[in-house]
């Protein structure tokens, strides 16, 4: 593989990331179905690898590939081949997670019946991981063969849905807050509530991801998303519904907002940090701010399904990506927040520009303003969602 090709593939990867980002399920499905033909390397790096190298330098213990499901464009193109070379374990890396709910619908039935889902690691958002753990679908992590687990950031190492991280570790984190196009707003935005400014009528969007949108609106109302009650949620949803019905909110989106923001169709949006980081290359004017009231923090976490018969291989993968240098390499290809201690310093070595971005390496005062939505029980989740879906008109 020549250097040029590798460079071109990186470029395609970057463009795609910019166009897609993480959570746009419909569009991505469309592109997958449409068989978007791209340079071979990129797809070979991201898709399932057939035949891979047979145990070069890894002692040849490779027993079946380790099968990983992740969101599209959530990894760089080097980590998978590097891991295969370093460990001799083949990887079948599939980008088939487009939506938490949709993926859950796929795996719920087989896991309920204790059948294999042909995956050894799946990567889902906090609340969904919580649901899987409470349903007993997760295999406990084998800490003995995962020494790098110690590199997990302290603030992520003990979470409500998975005390002491017995079943899951974060793959990556991201922030949801306010993205805006200063040319359209004509001013700096500093508050979550700026999104309700009547001047921007029909020019703002919010996210369909309930916890992010609801969390931000709650912050704007002076409520703590970590303690949100149903009546808080109802109040926030009433506010959202009113804005939707008046035409203030143009749309509720996955990350479709990204190109609308870049194209100037919208002035401001509830936006994910990684998307805006991706857009900055071609749209240097765009702004992403964590408002005074705060921003939402979410993580997507790796979990081993209880029916996996290759849990040892899964642990090798987790241990590998929890090495700070390896984690930095992933961040260089997918600009979100690494959950691994020391990855910032490693990133500075390979991508100094990126490492200095607050979107990848948030300063302490920003970190202090990040909130995580309260863990909801299954029944609460349904109640909250019912109110929320009604508010967004779906």
């Amino acid at each position, binding site marked *: 593989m020549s250097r040029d090709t590798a460079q071109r593939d990186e470029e395609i990867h970057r463009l795609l990331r910019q166009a897609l980002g993480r959570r746009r399920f419909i569009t991505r499905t469309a592109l997958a179905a449409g068989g978007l033909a791209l340079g071979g390397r990129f797809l070979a790096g991201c898709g399932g690898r057939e035949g891979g190298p047979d145990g070069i330098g890894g002692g040849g213990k490779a027993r079946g590939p380790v099968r990983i499901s992740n969101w599209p464009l959530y990894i760089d193109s080097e980590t998978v081949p590097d891991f295969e070379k370093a460990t001799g374990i083949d990887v079948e890396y599939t980008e088939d997670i487009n939506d938490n709910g949709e993926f859950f*619908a796929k795996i719920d039935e087989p896991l309920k019946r204790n059948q294999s889902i042909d995956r050894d690691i799946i990567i889902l958002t906090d609340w969904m991981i919580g649901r899987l753990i409470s349903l007993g679908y997760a295999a406990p992590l084998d800490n003995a063969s995962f020494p790098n687990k110690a590199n997990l950031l302290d603030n992520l190492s003990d979470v409500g849905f998975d005390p002491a991280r017995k079943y899951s570790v974060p793959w990556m984190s991201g922030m949801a807050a306010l993205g805006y196009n200063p040319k359209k707003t004509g001013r700096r935005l500093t508050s979550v509530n700026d999104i309700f400014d009547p001047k921007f009528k029909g020019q703002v969007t919010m996210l369909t991801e309930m916890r992010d949108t609801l969390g931000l609106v709650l912050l704007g109302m002076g409520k703590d998303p970590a303690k949100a009650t149903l009546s808080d949620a109802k109040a926030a949803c009433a506010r959202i519904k009113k804005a*939707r019905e008046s035409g203030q909110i*143009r*749309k509720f989106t996955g990350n479709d907002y990204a190109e609308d923001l870049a194209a*100037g169709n919208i002035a401001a949006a509830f936006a994910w940090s990684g998307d805006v980081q991706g857009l900055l290359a071609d749209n240097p004017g765009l702004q992403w701010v964590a408002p005074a009231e705060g921003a939402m923090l979410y993580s997507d976490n790796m979990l081993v399904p209880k029916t996996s018969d290759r849990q040892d291989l899964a642990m090798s993968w987790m241990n590998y990506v929890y090495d700070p240098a390896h984690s930095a390499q992933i961040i260089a290809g997918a600009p979100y927040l690494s959950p691994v201690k020391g990855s910032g310093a490693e990133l500075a070595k390979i991508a100094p520009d990126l490492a200095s971005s607050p979107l990848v390496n948030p300063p302490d005062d920003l970190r202090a303003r990040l909130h995580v939505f309260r863990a909801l029980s299954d029944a609460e989740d349904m109640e909250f969602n019912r109110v929320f*879906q009604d508010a*967004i*008109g779906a």
Partner: protein
Amino acid sequence: MAGTAAGGTRQSRAAPYLLIAPGVLWLTVFYVVPIVSLAQTSVEVAGGPWWDGYQRALTGYGTHFFRSLRYAFAATILALVLGYPLAYVIAFRAGRLKTLLLGLVILPFFTTFLVRTFAWKTILNDGGPAVRLLQQLHLLAPDGRLLDTTIAVIGGLTYNFLPFMVLPIYVSLEKIDRRLVEAAQDLYSTPRGAFQKIVLPLSLPGVFAGSLLTFIPAAGDFINAELLGSPNQQMIGTVIQNQFLEVRDYPLAAALSFVMMFLITLGVLAYARLLGTEELA
């Protein structure tokens, strides 16, 4: 059949059943079973009367049902208005270009539905050519937009289902014996009269089939509303999808599906009666 010998009838009586067996089996497994299970889901209400899902479907989602039917109706009419002349030209006037034109009608199917709809987002963009043209013609206010409006959703539906309207109409026009038209003209009918008395009535089965093929999927569609509409244009398909995948209120989602099926069946029956085609008689 009645008069044939006993030995022969046995086999020929069984033959039709054997021929339809694969189809019946297919429908049983992939249509009847899912429908029955969906019906069960719709009445399996935890902690409430069995009709709870239906009650909520009927009381809470009238806007969405009505909107879906309205959009599908508008798209069907538009597709008919655009599609009939097109089919007519292809069938009667295209000459050697016929195959090419038919090919062009089918061409969009070579890309997926989603990609095609997504392309519309680019076309209708606020800064895009369509908006600029309409603004220059003063058909659209300077701060107006196309994307995320009712027009965009109905336009997208019309575009996506247009071939389903054109093809059946084309087939029924193509089947018409040209000598009938010639005979009408020989009898001093005007071209318009010949069209009204001969061509149009004979093409009605095509119009009927085309309208159904457009209306039914359009009413259940959610992609166009989701990609091209704002939250105030969401159709019942989006609601059902969200109730199934996000809220996981399965009884409500199943009940919504059944109410929609019921409404569409009702509409189709009324339409069949109105148009009185032999196909459904």
